[in-house]
């Protein structure tokens, strides 16, 4: 693979990694608070539909984004009610919400636009447009780093940079603030938080709402940044890949960045069988690359390379009284 190709694939990888990263960080907040969330996929899908539809109807990508965030938060709250308030099974709730989203998005989009469950193509102000980073032009000619800066880093829509900034922000929130300390504590041992006089329920709801916001951004990016409109099942399992990345990253923000970049890179590479063949000298089946994130995650889960230990209270409802 020559450098130009690497640049191109990396550029593509960054775009494809962005929804994974946002969804992965979304899952991180929820799971760090002790609420397992396998419904990232559904929330992204809802957000994609809502943002696509709202952006089309209002002509404003920002309104679209907020609609997406709203839809994802709504689903988050259903998950919260089921798993926090009514102490239901978090895994089942997640599965259910994914189905709900698959059905709901098509029903709503079809009712609104009669285009088989997709929104009409977005244009102009209804889409996120690429942002040129400063000096991208000027630096493009610097050898090695220049093209990397100008081609790979520069020229993406705002949400790509939001996603990248979300990583240090998440890290900072988690490890440097009171909220983060409590969030981590409630996912490890909710009783410690409860006896310290902090509301477990409120903390967990806040976490779940942040999850909704980030999933909303992920969905909005899919429909209004990466694509110009929503299409049925457009998230295509990205929520599950994000979940895999979250495990791969052992529930840590910086690792999440690397994991999603890796998975994004695999996705980008899967698009270019020609490059693979040229680089490795043999035709690696695209199916194998598609499956690789899941295979890697299983290997990590199996503890063969550094065991992934989930937050200790994850998945269990907090019951104070019997």
């Amino acid at each position, binding site marked *: 693979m020559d450098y130009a190709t690497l640049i191109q694939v990396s550029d593509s990888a960054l775009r494809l990694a962005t929804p994974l990263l946002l969804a992965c960080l979304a899952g991180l907040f929820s799971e760090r608070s002790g609420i397992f969330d396998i419904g990232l996929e559904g929330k992204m899908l809802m957000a994609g539909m809502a943002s696509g539809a709202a952006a089309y109807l209002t002509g404003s990508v920002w309104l679209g984004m907020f609609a997406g965030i709203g839809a994802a938060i709504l689903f988050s709250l259903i998950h919260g009610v089921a798993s926090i308030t009514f102490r239901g099974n978090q895994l089942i709730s997640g599965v259910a919400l994914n189905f709900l989203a698959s059905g709901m998005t098509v029903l709503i989009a079809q009712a609104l636009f009669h285009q088989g469950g997709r929104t009409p193509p977005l244009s102009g102000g209804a889409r996120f447009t690429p942002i040129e980073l400063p000096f991208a032009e000027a630096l493009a000619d610097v050898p090695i780093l220049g093209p990397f800066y100008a081609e790979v880093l520069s020229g993406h829509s705002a949400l790509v940079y939001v996603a990248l900034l979300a990583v240090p922000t998440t890290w900072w929130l988690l490890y440097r603030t009171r909220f983060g300390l409590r969030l981590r504590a409630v996912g490890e041992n909710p009783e410690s938080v409860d006896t310290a006089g902090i509301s477990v329920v409120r903390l967990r709801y806040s976490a779940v709402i942040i999850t909704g916001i980030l999933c909303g951004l992920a969905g909005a990016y899919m429909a209004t940044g990466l*694509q110009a409109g929503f299409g049925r099942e457009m998230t295509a399992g990205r929520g599950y890949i994000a979940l895999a990345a979250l495990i791969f990253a052992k529930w840590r923000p910086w690792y999440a960045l690397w994991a999603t970049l890796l998975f994004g890179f695999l996705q980008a590479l899967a698009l270019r069988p020609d490059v693979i063949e040229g680089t490795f000298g043999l035709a690696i089946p695209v199916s194998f690359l598609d499956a690789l994130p899941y295979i890697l995650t299983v290997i990590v889960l199996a503890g063969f390379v550094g065991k992934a230990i989930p937050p200790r209270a994850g998945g269990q409802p907090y019951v104070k009284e019997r």
Partner: protein
Amino acid sequence: EPALIFDLGGKFDKSFNEAAYTGAQRWADETGGSYKELEMQSEAQREQALRRLAQSGANPIVMTGFAFGDVLNTVAPDYPETKFAIIDMVVDQPNVRSVVFTEEQGSYLVGMMAAQASKTGTVGFIGGMDIPLIRKFACGYVQGVKAVNPDAKVIQNMTGTTPSAWNDPVKGSELTKAQISQGADVIYAAAGGTGIGVLQTAADEGILSIGVDSNQNHLHPGKVLTSMLKRVDNAVYDAFKAGEAIEPGIHVMDLKVDGVGYALDDNNAALVSDEMKAAVDAAAEKIKAGEISVHDYMADNTCPVE
């Protein structure tokens, strides 16, 4: 009452299935008749869909897409009274009409236009699912490109190996970006719903694209060089019009019967110069007359040019 079954990708794919829909709609508008329609949701549903429509007395039943071939082969004999029409596939049954197109001819024409419009001498092709049918598009296209500019480079990519390749705009978009980075400045998308992503990205990045099946010029006015028309609409219209009297057997839609062609309208008028049009029209005449023979990939599963 006739019926129409759309393949995966759906009625509003702006391309192949939508062309079928347009044809059916034209028939309905003209005759005031009504028809049943059904969109496939999954691979395994095909048989149920066919049987259900046959059961309900629909006749003829038109289906779009080669993927129906296998099930039609088993279903058609169970309903000898019902007439079927399948597009893009040959099914040898007494009550089936098989409609096939000479996509290589239409693709040849748009290939010529691509070569003429290209400034870099590099053009692209993005196909949907990697099957001989789509290679047939690609091969005709390359032949057209080379006819104009023997030195031109054609970058080819297929979106995938499964039917989901017909409906993956994200991949279409990423492949477009990849081809642009390799120098392509005209890209032909023969990929169903995936093509929407191709055309969108091409328009965003300021290069030209070529649509397929339906006239897609209007999707991005001034940015779509032309569209390779595959008159699925005509095929559906004809079948509906013939009704129960539809003739079985193989039905080839080629340039001569306007089965394929290229689109010219207000949206791309500025992009197509008179000399381009003249050259393409001349080639079309020669193809019709048999003076130019465009190789059909599916005849021997090879393509003489790369």
